[in-house]
């Protein structure tokens, strides 16, 4: 028996795989609407695209929360907002523990370490803590340091670049049309402005978001198109992990097939970008998710724990990369 390849898959093979041109928003929506029976073929194509335009290397990263909880913003997915009845309490990580976290990350083989703070934007105290932390890390560990500290001013962008921050994460989180349903204390456009400043300062732009927050497939496609327009160096792809006490705390976990379609669709929209598996993958896709994602367009992972929740043991992901014969990206190598 022969089966007919869906037209969008045929089109993507020529457009994305052969010519390196990412799918448009409308095409991404067609991918997101493919039936479950087409997922294996879709993931296979996304994997081919990733291998063709990015190569077999995988970028491995660890993350840590420098300042946890007490955030004044109302991102409805986040347990660190001070506006919700979340069980997460405020905490600050001291410099020795930050350096230890960087060492733990480097031990896994990771070449990226991202320092994250739950803030609207950094104040002078946080900037000083970040400066001291980065200096101490660079003295002790050979690892690239990235930061995620919320919205920045011109001066803060310049200061972070001066500290040697090579990449800055600031997620747009979701489609522009859906953002007001997710955050009301700042705008999508304010986030975009920080990303513009980061790029102008010469830092790499890391920008992704969370899927499964109640957005429609059309809005998910819109988001992929908006990320493609931004041309970020890295896109972290999170799946909603409904946090107790938050406005999204009772949402259903995204179905596995939807998550896999999204992975492949984002790869086909962003053929050359570092596409990172981030939070929520364990919940949405289980242990098999790491394998299917890495064979479906993903070429970067966050290993170990997340900011306030736990992940798979780092060794499980590193062993999987070894089994799949996907080398970890070396320090200072560009994917």
């Amino acid at each position, binding site marked *: 028996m022969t089966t007919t390849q869906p037209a969008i898959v045929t089109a993507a093979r020529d457009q994305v795989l052969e010519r390196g041109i990412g799918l448009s928003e409308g095409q991404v929506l067609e991918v997101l609407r493919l039936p479950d029976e087409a997922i294996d073929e879709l993931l296979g194509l996304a994997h081919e695209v990733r291998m063709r335009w990015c190569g077999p290397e995988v970028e491995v990263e*660890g*993350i*840590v*929360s420098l300042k*946890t909880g007490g955030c004044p913003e109302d991102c409805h997915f986040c347990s660190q907002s001070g506006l919700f009845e979340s*069980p*997460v*309490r*405020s*905490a600050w*990580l001291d410099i020795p*523990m930050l350096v*230890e*976290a960087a060492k*733990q*990350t480097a031990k*896994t083989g990771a070449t990226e370490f991202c320092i994250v703070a739950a803030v609207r934007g950094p104040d002078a105290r946080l900037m000083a803590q970040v400066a001291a932390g980065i200096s101490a890390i660079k003295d002790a560990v050979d690892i690239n340091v990235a930061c995620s500290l919320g919205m920045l001013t011109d001066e803060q962008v310049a200061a972070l670049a001066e500290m040697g921050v090579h990449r800055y994460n600031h997620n747009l989180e979701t489609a522009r049309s859906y953002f007001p349903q997710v955050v009301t204390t700042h705008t999508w456009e304010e986030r975009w402005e920080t990303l513009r400043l980061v790029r102008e300062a010469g830092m790499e732009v890391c920008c992704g978001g969370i899927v499964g927050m109640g957005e429609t497939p059309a809005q998910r496609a819109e988001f992929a198109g908006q990320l493609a327009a931004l041309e970020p160096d890295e896109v972290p792809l999170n799946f909603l*992990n409904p946090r*107790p006490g938050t406005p999204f705390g009772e949402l259903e976990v995204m179905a596995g097939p939807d998550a896999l379609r999204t992975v492949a669709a984002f790869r086909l929209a962003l053929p050359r970008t570092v596409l990172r598996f981030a939070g929520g993958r*364990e*919940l949405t896709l289980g242990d098999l998710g790491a394998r299917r994602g890495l064979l479906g367009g993903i070429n970067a992972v966050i*290993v*170990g*724990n*997340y*900011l*306030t*929740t*736990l*992940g798979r*043991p*780092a060794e499980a992901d590193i062993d999987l990369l070894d089994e799949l014969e996907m080398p970890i990206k070396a320090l200072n190598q560009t994917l």
Partner: protein
Amino acid sequence: MSGFCDQCGQPAGDHPRCAARRELEPPRYCPDCARRMVVQVTPTGWTAHCSRHGERRSSPSA
């Protein structure tokens, strides 16, 4: 046996949702007194501090 659930802070008992959550969550409430703990997650572990009962840590393999 602990007096309180470390996920929801309610008296210990049969909490299927908390049990499922615990696989990917550090403790949030002190199992001795149900106070919310200050929790710090790191790439390979966690610490949780109760103002009354002190610090708990993940096992080395966590």
